[in-house]
């Protein structure tokens, strides 16, 4: 008997089909991820002139990215690990990286979707328009920023094995990020908190997205924010991969 192993592309095709079907069946969670940025777009209508369209869009995208990395990705990984889904997939003749790659592809599509919805919602609800270059760079910045939150989600599932505890921790981190991030950046929590938020994963991502949406405002501070964002991603991803266990019982 000849031993046949699937080609990487065929294996990935099957994994992607299954992971996208799973995401489609979880439409309610997807809608909730999109809903929060849209609600902010609508409720901040009166602040667009004061804060600037690019800042409003950047804040909404940042919040959407937070939800993807901290609520969607980490919870699905924690649940499937606990149920033995990964164990079952890993005894198949496919490399382990392809299983995680497929999961990440779903999240990349989610990042694309959130960014699109925020751009469309910004135009529809708040009449925010930016240059074509701004839109293109906005997508690029969203992927860079999304990587921070996905890797942070990876750290959480690396540190915590119980799916319920992962869920609670992610909600808490998400809540702290968006509340302290939004209000801190607006200077409502004092100067020190404002400065800390500026260099936090929330603030640095927000600033690079804002800078990309309005490229003429990009300055040295934005470059530093980009470097800090990349630094966060490298540190979180390294920790998350190092600590991650495929089996929640091991």
């Amino acid at each position, binding site marked *: *008997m*000849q*031993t*046949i*192993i*699937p*080609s990487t592309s*065929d*294996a990935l*095709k*099957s*994994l992607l*089909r*299954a992971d996208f*079907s*799973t995401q489609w*069946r*979880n439409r309610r969670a997807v809608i909730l991820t999109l809903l929060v940025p849209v609600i902010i777009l609508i409720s901040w209508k009166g602040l667009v002139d004061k804060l600037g369209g690019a800042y409003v869009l950047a804040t909404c995208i940042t919040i959407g990215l937070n939800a993807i990395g901290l609520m969607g990705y980490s919870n699905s990984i924690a649940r*499937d690990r606990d*149920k*033995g*889904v990964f*164990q*079952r*997939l*890993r*005894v*198949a*003749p*496919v*490399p382990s990286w392809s299983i995680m790659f497929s999961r990440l592809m779903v999240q990349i599509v989610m990042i694309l979707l959130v960014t699109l919805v925020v751009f469309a919602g910004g135009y529809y609800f708040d009449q925010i328009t930016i240059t074509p270059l701004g839109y293109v760079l906005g997508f690029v910045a969203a992927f860079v920023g999304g990587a921070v939150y996905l890797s942070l989600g990876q750290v959480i599932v690396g540190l915590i094995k119980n799916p319920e505890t992962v869920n609670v921790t992610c909600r808490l981190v998400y809540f702290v990020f968006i509340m302290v991030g939004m209000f801190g950046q607006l200077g409502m929590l004092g100067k020190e908190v404002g400065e800390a938020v500026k260099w936090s994963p929330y603030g640095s991502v927000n600033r690079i997205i804002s800078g990309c949406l309005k490229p003429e405002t990009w300055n040295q501070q934005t470059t530093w924010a980009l470097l800090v964002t990349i630094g966060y991603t490298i540190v979180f991803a390294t920790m998350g991969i190092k600590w991650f266990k*495929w*089996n929640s019982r*091991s």
Partner: protein
Amino acid sequence: MNQTSSDPILQVEGLDIFYGAFQAVKKVSFQVKGGEIFGLLGPNGAGKTSTLSAVEGLLPPNAGSITVAGYSITENPLYARANLGVQLQSTSFQPELSVAEIVRLFAGIHAVTMRKDELSAFLANIKLEDAAGKRFNQLSGGQQQRVSLAIALLHDPPLVLLDEPTTGLDPQSRRQLWERMEEMREKGHGILLTTHSMEEAEAVCDRIAIIDHGKVIAVDTPQSLVEKHRNDPEVVSASRKGKITLEDVFIGLTGKTVRS
């Protein structure tokens, strides 16, 4: 296949597994041949799961070797796993996926081409043709086991690992599963079965290894194990009805203490 017909399908040789300083598996060796049902029995924490995880390629051994159909699980993991079908204890499928989607996923990652009519025939074979669109968690326990076993056999692997497959099944489903296992044996599959049911081990296993404290303490046919140990004082004292059973031998060899 990377072996001759007389070679064992699974060869475990001098397997050692450590968790930090704790040695969970100590120099475990056994073979499973084609057309054989081999039972791996042991109390909780004896080293069964660690051994099984190493055979599946999920846990790297600290020493020793494991070959599946002639392929080393550490040196050629993809080829070794391609010759392996696994049924796990846990649910282990994404609950959002339908039965048909699960079958398609596992066909894809095992390089099995499955057309629509072949998928229908596959489901009809496990009497689940009407359940194609149902989510896995909407199936009964017996139906879930049938899907799980069928997926383990989807790519016709020479070696099948069954991890406590009858846990939680009613007697009818359990008997049905035993018959499936016997059919698999007739077709030449080698089966490595872990179970806590001595009745099951006695009913279906050709050979048994009893593992305790990480070591294999006995390997033989169920009948020979009973014959060999029927006069051991520990076995006699474990006997409840005068007649020595495999369970008495198991308790006699591994002790009466309940393991956590």
